[in-house]
């Protein structure tokens, strides 16, 4: 930022940019904006990726090292605590931009690498270090022998729209955000469009809820707009409770202003004046940045009373929620905001009629909202131009598991799952073969090898019996036991059930018992227990169908998905567990059968002494034996044997 005072910058940005409809044509402004946005710099700018993923990888130490380096060498440079550009695997990422030159991005910069990195780069030398590439720029001089970051295989196949500014701008700089085109859509919206028109535009764009439901966002908004009430509320669902995804939190941490802008537009569109962002309290960094961003927006007069002299009033409040998976369900979320137990209530009445404090309320998730300013700025047609006939726009995923490159990725709707895995993710990370992709816990869907060419599309997924879910994308290799995974999912649902309705409360517990029976060996295998086990399995499908059919909320309805899909795609694996009592992936440790290698056993009696059920016989200094009928498969002998004489069959 230049030497101008912050007040001057504010006045410039508000008067000449936000409130001036002619700004797009004014070329002269562009240069000024590029300095405010950080596209161009007067002095060296060092940007450290310090979203949660960066911090876990050690970015704080890196940041400290850079700070120390700068003060030791008395270098005047801007040091920015940045966001995540999506490539979490490459963290800590350090970007450096020198005046007049294109921005460089380096990966895996731990604190010990700071000195050599800065020694070189600040002297205009490209160091021999892992680099993601340089940013493309028409204004600045490009580096030689440095690839472009957008050609990096991880980014090349992505279509960054929502992630556009993530990891690029200072997340808590309202001036940088405005200079990059932020809040323009909002000021245009309130000066040009009626709320009804906003609903039209969003509906025409084909934007559908990204929380998993896929319901038309514009239609939902209109329901609330058409309901007359003295008070309405807009709620942003930032609970993100899926245990396999964190992209919503990542984009809030990296670009909180976009969420605020989106909420302002959405709140205006339904005729409300108060918006809540319901976010889990543990997301400390996201909350910190969101609150800082809100404070800035307030200081700029963009939120609050009589916004930029328009007569529009919108108050945005960050609500720090307590943790419960069910808070992701909209009626439960509303109860939680009201200070109650987050128990879903039956619909109808829908929240658009009677939600928070019985007033019309719309709940949208973070990713859905992130699209809104872009649609308002570029038009419904622009949004429609990407994606498939049914599903428009892009989709974010948290790519993780046995894949070479991972992080937050954004691809246009219509991309195949195989492409995300191979092109963006770079294929399998382990030498084991691909088994399946798990989409979020809500959908409980598996993309197996034979359907890898399925497109990311609500309908295409429905055709293969899957659902998009919230955006988790966990790649599994052959080392994963699908029965165990289904058990894990069921255990999760049992733990997270709110306990209100019978099918979810009692049913998940019963399903879990069946799954536990399949993946473990009872200590005493009475014939009636075996009979019960088989009886349970026989009832499993029927029980799952009833739970799906009768549960009160979407959490309950989706709780049997993982089991149903396992039975569909991995029936054989399930049967092997059940009838042969074996786990091919060797994950269900209870099913292991142990034996002693007579050659290797020295007769040390260690296993004999430790066996909890006296299943090992033998005399000292002679090889021992395991009585299979007595063995409970606890693995104690395997652990205590110093001679690798205990084998797993």
């Amino acid at each position, binding site marked *: 930022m230049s030497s101008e005072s912050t007040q001057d910058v504010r006045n410039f940005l508000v008067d000449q940019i936000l409130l001036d409809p002619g700004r797009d044509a004014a070329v002269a402004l562009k240069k000024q904006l590029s300095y405010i946005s950080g596209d161009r710099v007067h002095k060296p700018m060092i940007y450290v990726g310090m979203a949660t993923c960066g911090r876990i990888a050690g970015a704080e130490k890196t940041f400290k090292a850079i700070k120390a380096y700068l003060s030791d060498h008395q270098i005047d440079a801007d040091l920015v605590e940045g966001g995540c550009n999506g490539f979490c695997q490459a963290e800590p990422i350090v970007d450096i931009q020198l005046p007049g030159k294109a921005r460089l991005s380096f990966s895996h910069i731990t604190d010990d690498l700071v000195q050599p990195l800065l020694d070189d780069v600040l002297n205009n030398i490209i160091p021999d270090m892992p680099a993601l590439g340089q940013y493309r720029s028409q204004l600045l001089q490009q580096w030689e022998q440095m690839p472009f970051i957008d050609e990096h295989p991880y980014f090349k196949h992505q279509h960054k729209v929502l992630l556009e500014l993530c990891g690029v701008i200072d997340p808590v700089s309202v001036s940088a955000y405005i200079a990059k085109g932020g809040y323009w859509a909002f000021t245009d919206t309130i000066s040009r469009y009626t709320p009804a028109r906003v609903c039209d535009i969003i509906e025409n764009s084909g934007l559908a809820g990204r929380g998993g439901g896929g319901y038309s966002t514009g239609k939902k908004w209109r329901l609330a707009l058409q309901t007359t009430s003295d008070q309405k509320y807009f709620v942003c669902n930032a609970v993100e409770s899926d245990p396999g995804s964190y992209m919503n939190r990542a984009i809030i941490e990296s670009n909180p202003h976009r969420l605020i802008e989106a909420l302002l537009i959405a709140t205006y569109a339904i005729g409300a004046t108060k918006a809540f962002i319901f976010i889990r309290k543990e997301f400390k960094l996201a909350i910190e940045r969101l609150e800082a961003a809100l404070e800035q927006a307030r200081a700029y007069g963009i939120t609050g009373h009589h916004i930029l002299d328009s007569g529009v009033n919108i108050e945005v409040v960050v609500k720090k929620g307590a943790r*419960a998976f069910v808070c992701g369900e909209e009626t439960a979320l509303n109860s939680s905001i009201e200070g109650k*137990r987050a128990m879903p*209530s*039956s619909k*109808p009445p829908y929240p658009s009629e009677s939600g928070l404090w019985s007033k019309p309320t719309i709940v949208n998730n973070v990713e859905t909202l992130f699209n809104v300013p872009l649609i308002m700025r570029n038009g419904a047609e622009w949004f429609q131009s990407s994606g498939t006939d049914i599903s428009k726009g892009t989709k974010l995923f948290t790519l993780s598991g046995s894949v070479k490159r991972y992080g937050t990725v954004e691809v246009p709707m219509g991309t195949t799952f195989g492409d995300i895995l191979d092109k963006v993710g770079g294929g399998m990370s382990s030498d084991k073969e691909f088994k399946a992709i798990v989409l979020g816990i809500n959908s409980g869907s598996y993309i197996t090898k034979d359907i890898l060419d399925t497109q990311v599309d609500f309908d295409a997924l429905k055709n293969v019996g899957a659902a998009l879910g919230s955006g988790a994308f966990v790649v599994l290799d052959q080392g994963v036991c699908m029965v165990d995974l289904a058990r894990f999912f069921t255990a999760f649902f*049992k*733990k*997270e*059930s*709110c*306990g*209100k*309705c*019978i*099918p979810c*409360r*009692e*049913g*998940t*517990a*019963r399903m879990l*018992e069946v799954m536990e029976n399949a993946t473990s060996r009872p200590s005493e295998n009475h014939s009636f227990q075996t009979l*019960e086990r088989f*009886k*349970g399995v026989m*009832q499993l499908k*029927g*029980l799952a169908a*009833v739970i799906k*059919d*009768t*549960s*009160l909320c979407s959490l309950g*309805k989706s709780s049997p998905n993982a089991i149903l899909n396992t039975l569909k795609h991995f029936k054989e694996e399930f049967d092997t567990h059940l009838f042969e009592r074996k786990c091919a992936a060797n994950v269900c440790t209870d099913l292991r059968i142990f034996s002693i290698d007579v050659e290797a056993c020295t007769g040390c009696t260690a296993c004999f002494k430790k066996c909890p059920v006296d299943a090992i016989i033998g005399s000292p200094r002679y090889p021992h034996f395991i009585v299979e009928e007595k063995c409970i498969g606890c693995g104690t002998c395997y652990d205590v044997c110093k001679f690798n004489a205990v084998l797993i069959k």
Partner: protein
Amino acid sequence: MEIQIDVNAKQISAVEGETLLTVLRKHGFKIPTMCHMNRFSPTGACRLCVVEVEGKRDLITSCSYPVEQGMKVRTNSQRVMRARKSLVELLLSNHPDDCLYCVRNGHCELQWLAEEMNVKERKYFGEKNATYPDYSSTSVARDPAKCVLCSRCVRICEEVQLVTAIDFISRGNQTKVNSAFNQGLNVSSCIHCGQCIQVCPTAALTDISHVEKVQAALGNPRQKVVFLINPGASASMAVELKWKPGENLGGRLAAALRSCGAFRVFDMGYATDLHIVEEARMLATHIRAGKPGPMLSSCCPAWVRYVEEFRSDLLDNLAPVKSSQQFLGTLVKTVYAHENKLDADTIFTVGVTPCVANKYEASREENTHRGISEVDAVLTVRELFHLLRAYGLEMKQIDEELMDEPFATSSAFAYKVNYTGGKAEAVARELFRIWADSDKETFKFNLPKNQAIKRETRVKIGEREFGFAWVSSIEEADSYLREIAEEGRDDIHYIEVMACLGGCAGGGGQPISRGFEKPLARKRICQDVEKGHSAKSAWEHADIRAYYNKNKTGRPAGQADEWLEARFRERTDLK
């Protein structure tokens, strides 16, 4: 607006805005429910009322779904029936299989449902939740193992009684209805009204049973068991046994209990009359002294407990008179014992009432004197049936007998106080008797036209008008008290408060009844008795006049003086 819907291929008409369940039940379709409560908003928790609606992907709960023109509903499709049956089977999979030992055996909604759904084998096996029963309270026992989490008790405790002594604790499969910190009801804010027992579909909430205690006393030759029969209990019994109007309700009961080995059977209505007269005297003092605010009735122990717990600012407004149960217990153990040369500690008094809170009341500290309780045990009407059954008594074959002197009779008002409004009228009538010039004036107690909206009236005595009001349920009491306080009204002099909906006719100790049919039937029985009764008011009851002739101050001499004093105090248990 009237609309048409199609149910099981039959056209039926409905009114827009009604829920599907209301319409279906009105037309005779049997829809099972568990969490549904009349007059409460639907929660949709039990899912038992699901039906299939054409065009809907999932089954829908009829209790919460409004009817729509032309909707096609199936209430008994294969899918619906399988769902309902599975839900019951799931409940049973986490339920103790001890119906034979269960106090609600034969009266249990879960049992009925299992029977209706034709559940004939255990389908789901698995671990049952580990729970601990809570017998810490003096009145209400809880067994969470039998709880189906329908939320009816939680809602009545919170929304009707404003107490929230119990609530859902924890989450998911571990959810339990419990008191704060799982500490037990004895240290909770429970006011012992027992409304939760009334709404509980299973035996998760029951009363602390005194049946065995009473049986032991009956079998003990050293103890003289004296039953104190609340007229409300006999009226309730009459409803259960479908007795014809005009039959002597207490008479048969007296005979039955004697054959069980009772020493004496007394009419608690006698003490009710005394209580009325005393309360009217206190009211006269209250008005004459110009005390602020109306005087509040104190005959309902749950209400008294509520005031002590939540509204200690009203303690001074409670009428300082003992309730009829404790009044009679006192008289029996003091005056009666003295006159008949009996040792008080050999007398075992048993209250028989439609009230659960009476159990708690009998255990209150000030109602025991140097180890001697005024009332030793209290049987609710439910327990009375258990006792009689245990002794093999067939009530129809028992001939009427009279209750024992000197507490053998009561006035019509002893019955009238069983439903809301009766007590207010009784006290008004006595106040009138004390102050009015009976030659020139006649007593008029005009009931308002719509008692659902307004429950107060004015009684003219001489030149002055006195306001009398009556409310039942704490919610009603609270909102009424707030209303008159906010409006700064000083025209209401007496408020009758009954903690149970509809008064004692809807009491927590009554036989379990869903809805208002049975309480209304009990009220009708009481009204029938009143019509044929010779003593139209407490004072017209000759025995009462005799009592006051003997004890001018209303208090018999000696020991009873201290015993008869009613004491209230602020309590700081969990609010």
